[in-house]
């Protein structure tokens, strides 16, 4: 049976990340940043990646990383989700790193692990593992094509690009034209990538690398969704204890208490499902595909429900730009599509656990 608890080391890691985020990633700062031309917080990323070594969590020590597992990465994602931190941890330290761990390019892996470079897998954010992804044309030793929906590409130093010859290529971001797209999620913006004869270095077969990367992305995204949902519940409970209407705290009204208790219950279940996925990925369990599909099919509706309830229960203030709840709603809704919708993961489960469609 999988270990569904948090170890002491994991709790220590959580505390350290939470402290750092408390000092360097407050909601007002995130709102100000996403209104600028540079929504990503490069300073914060440097502190997390360089200062704490988090970019290399999944990379073995002999390849320049921390030699930790998906369990630790999941704890980090819970905290980053709680802060809707605009940093490329999931895209670079998890997804691109997993693609590189599938084979080859030790030098680049070490660069990503150290935080010296940010890498991004050039596959649209909405795709689940195992689905068809868009490729670029490989012709006369150069890459040609246009890719959209690439998360965090705006800050990437290198792009991992699948091509029509079946290979995965490393392309220097300076060799591509990267244009930010106006994104629903302000804190994990998407970009369009155009390659017009860019040179790339062949890493290996794209298919297994992309599959592995997207599965890890989906499995660990559930922990980000858990952190996000947990923050919205905590913050809503805090607010409803203070906010008075009809001469009593709004949180004392049974209709609202029941909604919050229901939300708590959903989040408790999400924690178990997310831990199960992280542990299954960490141990390379045979059950990992099912664990990831269950976590993703369960997480998205819960996180979106939590953020929607938070907005509604904050009343008018929840509808404003200055209150951070909109950042959480936008992230939660975007996360519900990222690495496959709940419906896509349910369809995968139907095959995995033999509950076939009509």
């Amino acid at each position, binding site marked *: 049976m999988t270990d569904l608890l948090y170890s002491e080391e994991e709790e220590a890691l959580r505390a350290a990340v939470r402290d750092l985020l408390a000092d360097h990633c407050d909601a007002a700062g995130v709102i100000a940043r996403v209104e600028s031309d540079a929504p990503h917080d490069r300073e914060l990323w440097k502190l997390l990646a360089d200062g704490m070594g988090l970019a290399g969590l999944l990379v073995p020590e002999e390849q320049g990383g921390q030699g930790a597992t998906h369990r630790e990465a999941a704890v980090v994602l819970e905290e980053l989700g709680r802060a809707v931190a605009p940093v490329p941890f999931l895209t670079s330290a998890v997804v691109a790193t997993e693609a590189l761990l599938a084979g080859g390019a030790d030098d680049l892996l070490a660069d990503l692990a150290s935080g010296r470079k940010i890498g991004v897998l050039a596959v649209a954010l909405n795709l689940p593992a195992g689905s068809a992804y868009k490729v670029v044309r490989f012709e006369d030793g150069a890459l040609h094509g246009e890719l959209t929906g690439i998360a965090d590409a705006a800050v990437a130093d290198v792009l991992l690009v699948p091509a029509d010859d079946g290979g995965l290529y490393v392309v220097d971001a300076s060799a591509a034209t990267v244009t930010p797209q106006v994104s629903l999620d302000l804190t994990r913006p998407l970009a369009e990538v155009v390659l017009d004869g860019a040179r790339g270095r062949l890493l290996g077969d794209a298919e297994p690398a992309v599959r592995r990367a997207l599965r890890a992305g989906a499995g660990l995204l559930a922990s980000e969704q858990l952190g996000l949902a947990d923050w919205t519940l905590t913050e809503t409970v805090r607010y409803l204890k203070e906010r008075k209407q009809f001469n009593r705290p709004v949180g004392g009204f049974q209709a609202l208490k029941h909604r919050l208790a229901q939300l708590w219950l959903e989040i408790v279940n999400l924690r178990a499902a997310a831990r199960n996925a992280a542990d299954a990925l960490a141990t390379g369990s045979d059950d990992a595909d099912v664990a990831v599909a269950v976590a993703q099919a369960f997480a998205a509706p819960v996180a979106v429900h939590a953020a929607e309830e938070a907005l509604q229960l904050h009343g008018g203030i929840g509808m404003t730009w200055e209150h951070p709840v909109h950042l959480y709603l936008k992230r939660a809704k975007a996360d519900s599509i990222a690495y496959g919708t709940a419906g896509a993961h349910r369809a995968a489960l139907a095959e995995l656990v033999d*509950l076939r469609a009509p």
Partner: protein
Amino acid sequence: MTDAAELRRRTAELLAAYPPATTDRVDFLRARFDAGLAWVHYPEGLGGLGAPRSLQAVVDADLEAEGAPDNDPRRIGIGLGMAAPTILAYGTQEQKRRYLRPLWTGEEVWCQLFSEPGAGSDLAALGTRAVREGDEWVVNGQKVWTSSAHIARWAILIARTDPDVPKHRGITYFICDMTDPGVEVRPLRQVTGEAEFNEVFITDVRIPDSRRLGEVGDGWKVAQTTLNNERVAIGGMRLPREGGMIGPVSKTWRERPELRTHDLHQRLLKLWVEAEAARLTAERLRQQLVVGQPGPEGAGMKLAFARLNQEISGLEVELRGEEGLLYDDWTMRRPELVDFVGRDAGYRYLRSKGNSIEGGTTEVLLNIVAERVLGLPSEPRTDKDVAWKDLAR
């Protein structure tokens, strides 16, 4: 401290002295109790060895491997899960010695005389009266929803001993003899057609003061021990995937492709995922208990399973189509065991309606979660400082 190795040695000794294949079931259970292997965390002489609770699993696994009779905790759920921990916490040494052994072996069945027609979720409003006469208490009143009353030898009973103080303060906790002629048990037929529960009428039943548990007027505090144990009981369960209500409907889906529709497929997969998440949550709670860090998740598990059981069984009735219009058997029966999954889909659908009522309604449990886990303000209380006799009824 008794460790796992010591427990395994004692278990092996028990198995050698009383080979399960040739030993009478009750004799074996008595011997197991006397060896301290019934509930290892109980004190020596009372069925235990004062060992950590988590080590019970070691004993159970070794006994199961040898085919030893297991005392099914469901069969004696109220005795094992609720009466026993309360007697252990509040009973006199004499009471513990008298009641725990036959309770554990199943020779004496227990029931719980708590709920009344006018006191369900508001249990402390109960009106059954106990009036002291010398060394005895004379009890009059009516109880309801009493499972196993028709086979029980003993009951845990709460009754009002002082109507002049606020409702939570004037209650006392007793052990009631169900064979007393003043105790009348009538079956209460339910939506399923079965009479799993009973009404119990108590008329001039005389209970000796030596069968009081805890102090006079302290019955509410004692009852909290009983009720908390009721809700903890779920934490020890280890369920395999598809081990609950989702199992039968998944099986039907696999075996009967002609019943499948796209709508039902979507709903089945959604519920399958939710059931798996709930199972993992129960497992996580169990892991927390094993390391001695019980989490607040237990408060929510009953809520989750009640809703899932209802939705899943409802789905299965629909999935069965024409068969879903039928019911296996309306004959009135008085089962000794509640079996949630053993009968057909229609029975499961109807029985699961009780899951959100029994052991605390969903509405009251949501209040408890909101107040005790989330710290939200409590419901307004208009009865707090009012004597029970002055409350509106």
